[in-house]
């Protein structure tokens, strides 16, 4: 009897649909389960075995200088094998699924076990074998999109810019993935996902103006590629003949992409900002005192809420944690401006909260406001003097206490005077904190899905006071 028959998958609702027109390019639930059984059988020395598996098939069109110069298709299966014996654990990664390849990875992990401290008294991680939520993350039309259709979309995106004598560069990448987590303690999770990345830049021939637009989503029907191309084209045209404006603090309208770019340092799953352990050890902006965080305190504008919910129709994500298989539940990280939670791992949960489940920051979120949404045009109309930002580039944190960041504006920057866009201006370096910006809120737009390579993020446009542009950065 295999592990998967002992503990029937609670996730039988979503198997991997097959397109009639595309070959099987990534592993199904059943294939992942069979692979796990083989891995368990190949292990030696007892203990527990778990795998986190991502099987993906990606295809894409990449263009530059108005030509789709590269079309590609890549299949990859990544298996992360964890062996735990007597409290020691070791991990090995592999991309081979044949017996010898799996055996080699398992051998590496088992040999490495000796270098971890074995502690038979360490609390055994008990899995939370509860049903997960069931977000819709699969789109059959997306999976069925073939190379010719993808190429046609790209050609149509390029056409107007080429006709206008401009240079278009962009990418349309479509992937189908199966995420699986299995372990010998009874977890058997699988989730199929489709993913689309569509973005385009348009520049003039002299390299003096540029515009950009992009979006990611699981469903290609939610991405209007031609509209994105039109926005990028329009921003480029409206960026021509840029002038310079003095750096300083301005009322600034951040388009949704700019808001997400700035807020990324806060919601980074690998970053220190939202780490409860760090905060209780005086690290980061949410440290109150030794052993205490700012949970329960107002840290953002009182209208703002940041929530991660697998079931969000535009910000949904795979509903279980990659390594443990623990189900993700909806979490409000910030609610009405109050810090409600910070992420913690299982050892913190066990030792400090006397419970078995961690609270992980997955990275996807919806940032929303209780204020009546206002369009960007209306924000401009009510601005006496300010700046409109398309997006940011290379945002780096320089101080983790305040989340002070620096970076550059990019692909469209305009001066607003007397309620109108008066002229395009040269790019700036900014030095500000997303926490400062979100405490200087004047208006908020409707949240929309933005572009991100990894996560599903929804953010609104924001009009903020005193955004600090510290120096000219005349790159285009």
């Amino acid at each position, binding site marked *: 009897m295999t592990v998967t028959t002992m503990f029937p998958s609670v996730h039988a609702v979503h198997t991997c649909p097959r397109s009639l027109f595309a070959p099987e390019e990534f592993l199904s639930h059943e294939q992942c389960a069979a692979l796990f059984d083989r891995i368990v059988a190949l292990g030696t020395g007892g203990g527990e075995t778990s795998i986190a598996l991502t099987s993906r098939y990606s295809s894409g069109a990449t263009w530059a200088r108005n030509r789709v110069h590269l079309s590609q298709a890549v299949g990859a299966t990544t298996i992360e094998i964890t062996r735990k014996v007597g409290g020691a654990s070791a991990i090995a*990664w592999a991309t081979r699924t044949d017996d010898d390849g799996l055996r080699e990875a398992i051998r590496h992990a088992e*040999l490495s076990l000796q*270098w971890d401290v074995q502690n038979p008294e360490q609390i055994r991680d008990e899995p939370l074998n509860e049903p997960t939520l069931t977000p819709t993350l699969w789109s059959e039309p997306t999976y069925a999109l073939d190379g010719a259709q993808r190429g046609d979309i790209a050609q149509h995106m390029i056409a107007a810019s080429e006709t206008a004598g401009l240079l278009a560069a962009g990418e349309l990448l479509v992937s189908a993935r199966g995420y699986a987590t299995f372990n010998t303690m009874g977890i058997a999770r699988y989730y199929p996902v489709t993913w689309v990345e569509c973005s385009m830049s348009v*520049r003039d021939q002299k390299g003096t103006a540029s515009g950009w637009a992009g979006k990611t989503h699981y469903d290609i029907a939610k991405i209007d590629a031609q509209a994105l191309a039109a926005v990028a084209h329009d921003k480029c045209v409206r960026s021509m003949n840029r002038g310079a404006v003095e750096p300083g603090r301005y009322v600034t309208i951040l388009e949704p992409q700019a808001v997400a770019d700035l807020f990324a340092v806060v919601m980074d799953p690998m970053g220190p900002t939202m780490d409860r352990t760090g905060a209780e050890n005086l690290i980061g902006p949410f440290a109150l005192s030794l052993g205490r965080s700012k949970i329960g305190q107002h840290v953002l504008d009182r209208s703002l809420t940041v929530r991660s919910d697998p079931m969000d129709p535009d910000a949904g994500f795979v509903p279980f944690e990659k390594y443990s298989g623990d189900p993700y539940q909806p979490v409000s990280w910030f609610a009405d401006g109050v810090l409600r939670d910070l992420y913690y791992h299982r050892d913190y949960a066990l030792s400090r909260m006397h419970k078995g489940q961690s609270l992980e920051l997955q990275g996807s979120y919806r940032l929303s406001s209780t204020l009546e949404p206002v369009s960007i045009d209306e924000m401009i109309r009510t601005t006496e003097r300010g700046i409109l930002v398309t997006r940011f580039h290379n945002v780096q944190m320089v101080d983790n206490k305040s989340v002070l960041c620096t970076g550059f504006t*990019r692909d469209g920057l305009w001066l607003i005077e007397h309620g109108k866009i008066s002229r395009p201006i040269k790019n700036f370096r900014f030095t500000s904190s997303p926490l400062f910006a979100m405490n200087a809120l004047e208006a908020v737009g409707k949240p929309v899905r933005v572009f991100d390579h990894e996560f599903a993020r929804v953010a609104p446009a924001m009009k903020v006071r005193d955004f600090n542009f510290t120096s000219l950065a005349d790159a285009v």
Partner: protein
Amino acid sequence: MHRRRFLQTSASVGVSAMLTTLVARSAHAAHAATRFDPRHIRDVLPHQGPERKALLLTAIDAARAAGAQYCDVRFGINHREIWQQFEGLRYPAPSNMTVVAVSVRALYDGYWGFAAAEGLPSIDIVSKLGKDAAAQAKIGARGKPRTALLAPTAVVTDGVWTTPIEIDPFTVDPGEKVDLMLGIDSFIERQAPGVGGGGMLMFVRDETSFASSDGSFFTQTLYTSEAGVLIGAEPHYQTKLEANRNCSLASVAGAGWEHIVRAPIEEHVPQYVEQALAMRTPTPVNVGRYDIVFDTDAMADILDGTFGAATEIDRAMGYRANTVGTSYLSDPTRMLGSEQVAAPIVSVSSDRTMLKGAATVKWDAEGVTPDVVPLVTKGVLTDFQTTRESASWLSDAYARVNRPVRSHGCATSDSITAPAQSMCANLTLAPGPGNDTFESLVASTKKGLAVLGSSVTMDQQCLNGACQGNLVYEIVDGKLGKVIGGTTILFRAPEFWKGVLALGGPSSARTTGRSNWPLDPLGTRTGGKARSTSVVPAKVKQLAVVDTIPRT
């Protein structure tokens, strides 16, 4: 210095006990290793065996049969071992990652197609990839006409090359690696109270076989090794500031275990500890303009972020405009051979032949033997980092300066499953004409700043940058003074390089590596390919300095 001297000089009984345990564990490992012996892929497909070549040629044949006018195939075995974050006597097990993959690139009517798969390849799989690559190229070719001319390159017949290492790091007993890192941790702790360290080791072996429709076939095995440590100092009793100094004990290089054990750890660790302690008592910077002396670590970062990235021809021609950006060297054809981009004292070259260079190869990802590329000669832009196709983009410029059109061998990719493109290779900043050193450059500065190590961020055109010094001293009357905190140096690349007042001499040259530390275990997001930079210290005039630390 023998590694075991670290442990023998330690007074900790616990460490000695751990050594005993480590020896026992080594014996266990040896026993465990004999219990099963999976066939490694190199035994299934030995690189000098006929099976591997047959596999690659099958892909070539399939792509050609499907209409490709040129194609090449790469089969790779990448193994990576990472030891990270030793914490006193407790240390986690190393991470081991092995990626096996094959990819085919096909050219049809000026358009590229690319197909790749991870896992054990078979005849069926490589045939399919060959057909897929050609089919992908034909999809692109449905658009308007495009021309892709490939600069000629010599055919490589059954070539074999391996990074010249002395000790394969993957044959070194893990106990020996742990011994060394524990010894270093102990050595750090003995330098001063309240100081500790956590180490890192990373080893990469990258074996790639390549075949092309031109008739080339070779197998190349590349090694890189590196060791680093994060030295932490507890908060200062007055300032309450703690310090963390990220230090390279042996920066990434095309070398083996010998690179680690021969690193001058005893010489550098005390300096790093002293610097970490000093970082806790900084004086706020007075904003303004200063002449600044940069050490070799800082110059390596600046060189890499400016000329290194700006001379990637793909970037300069707009092929990455939608992702990382473009280049301020935005008109390569016009600029090559005439554009003054630096002071006359400055010459920079790209060199994938550098001894122990982290990006050193015998052949690049297109089978081209790299040459030393003068990128900047006496301040004038001389060339770009090119591939076979991108070299042809500069045909007119090469004709103007009477040079042949040839790839400089800069084709690289982050992995087998990513298409090759021009990527920054090893770089060299030529020494100045005299015998200056960092110390003499400081001594010749009446008032300024000295920067040791840095973190450099650049804008999307590699034009405007910010350099945050790891450790910054004020210079007063030719001497290092107080440690300055919160210092960020803002610069524009052309003004920076044109403002170079002096360069260190040959004796001051140091080679450092820039790691491709993976952002995720399988390196699907990396910081670019590992590469080495050979630089000298430099003094640059009148750079703007700002204070980025919030004051309460």
